[in-house]
């Protein structure tokens, strides 16, 4: 198993922490992982992205130009990364704020209304966990029990009371993902 993922959106959406939780979940499952952020003068409202790789074997390059999965959370990222999904790969996006929807016919395309769902849950900070749930529904590469362990490792202990809420958000994401195009 080797899964190469790009998660891209606005700073403040929880892109980097979602990647971190996914990477930690991989460690809990005994996988090799890398987490490589775009770093620089990004801030809330600017763009942020992270490349996460999970693999059964030692990982070589942490920098990639093609991905098995792209998780896209704003228009700039759609413009940049739609064409970097491998043929037969997966693109998941939140249509909120997207003006040009994905066009490709050679990849699977799914949407998740994570803004609405996290608002319904009453916690907009659970946004990234809704997206993570949607992803894990399509690619169950880590078991839920290890995701919870990964959450515990990624979140400071003083916030561990929030883990059940995060788990609910992941479940909601799994339920609500919509497949728009299959190959």
């Amino acid at each position, binding site marked *: 198993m080797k899964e190469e993922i790009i998660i891209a959106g606005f700073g403040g959406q929880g892109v980097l922490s979602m990647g*971190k939780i996914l*990477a*930690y979940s991989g*460690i809990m499952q005994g996988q*090799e*992982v*890398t*987490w*490589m*952020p775009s*770093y*620089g*003068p990004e801030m809330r409202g600017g763009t942020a992205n992270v490349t996460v790789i999970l693999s059964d074997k030692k990982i*070589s*390059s*942490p*920098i*990639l*130009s*093609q991905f098995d999965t792209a998780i896209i959370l704003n228009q700039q990222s759609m413009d940049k990364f739609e064409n970097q999904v491998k043929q037969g790969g997966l693109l998941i996006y939140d249509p909120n704020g997207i003006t040009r929807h994905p066009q490709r016919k050679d990849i699977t395309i799914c949407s998740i209304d994570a803004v609405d769902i996290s608002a319904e849950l009453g916690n907009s900070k659970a946004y990234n966990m809704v997206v993570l749930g949607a992803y894990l529904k399509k690619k169950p590469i880590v078991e839920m029990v290890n995701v919870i362990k990964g959450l515990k*490792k*990624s979140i400071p202990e003083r916030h561990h009371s929030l883990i059940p809420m995060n788990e609910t958000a992941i479940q909601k994401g799994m339920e609500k993902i919509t497949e728009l195009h299959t190959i």
Partner: protein
Amino acid sequence: MAEFILMKGNEAIAISAIRNGCDGYFGYPITPQSEVMETLMVERPWETTGMVVLQAESETSSINMLYGGASCGKKVMTSSSSPGLSLMCEGLSYLAGAELPCVVVNVVRGGPGLGTIQPGQGDYFQACKGGGHGDYKMVVLAPNSAQEMYDFVDLGFDLAFKYLTPVMILADGVVGQMMEKVELRPVKPRWSDEEIKKSFKWATTGKTPDREQNVLTSLALDAAVHERLNHKLQSKYKQMETEDVRFESYMCEDADHIIVAYGCMARICENTVELARNEGIKLGLLRPITLYPFPTTEIQRMVPQLKTIMSVELSAGQMVEDVRLAVNGKIPVNFFGRLGGIVPSPHEVYEAFKKEINK
């Protein structure tokens, strides 16, 4: 089973310093290595191991704090990124001249000048060919993972005290910022003052009636004395070249061509090797782990089986000069590099490689 922690290369440097008996860290913040001091400040090792963590007023100051700490036989270190390292070069030359051990981490960004905060490897010359003045060398370690960032702090101190010399860990923005799983090795406690007094007769541990006055300096106004010091330094560098060359080979056994790359570029080129192998091209990768001493002998050993060698760097071509010296004109030595903080993908390196071999 060992416990694995997900951490950035920069965080691994900090955690490793605390766990490997480092006595003092002196630094000044700069991207992309600020997490080193941030992590130390969060961990508060002065409350546990007694390690000192101090933010100096500048890089010039922090390197001279290393001179002071190292003179006392303490395990001291600093970290910075390219422009900060330039400010430290005078101090590095003094530390080398006075034969003092320390570990200096450079998480390289694109230069010259203030440059960019994105990754670079343009400080190879500065690290391996001097930087500071005079005929000195440092052991230069090039980690390519968060685990090696962790491990090389300990290895760096071992080598620094073996040779009584500054050791540089030459990382880059990718290795510093990337998170990977890191295995925490067993803790090494700090040395006690008694242990230091007993082990390091050269250290300035205080004049007692039974002890001669001890002055640590790089100054020798008598030319004959100074030449002797220089010869002593040179014999240490010869010893490093025989005893402490480190490298890693990947798919080199049957290779017709090899890429030489270090740090993050070695990770990227490993993937390039796989792309080439999938198309039936026998490409291998040689990764120098010590940039000084350079794996010259290993390259020379491989030359008879090879058609070409390509050096791949985030620079305009620096390590390639050491590759050319090793190859000595016997086979073509090619080069591919990106500048200004751009990091190429494995595919981009592969295209550049194919272009060169099909010329």
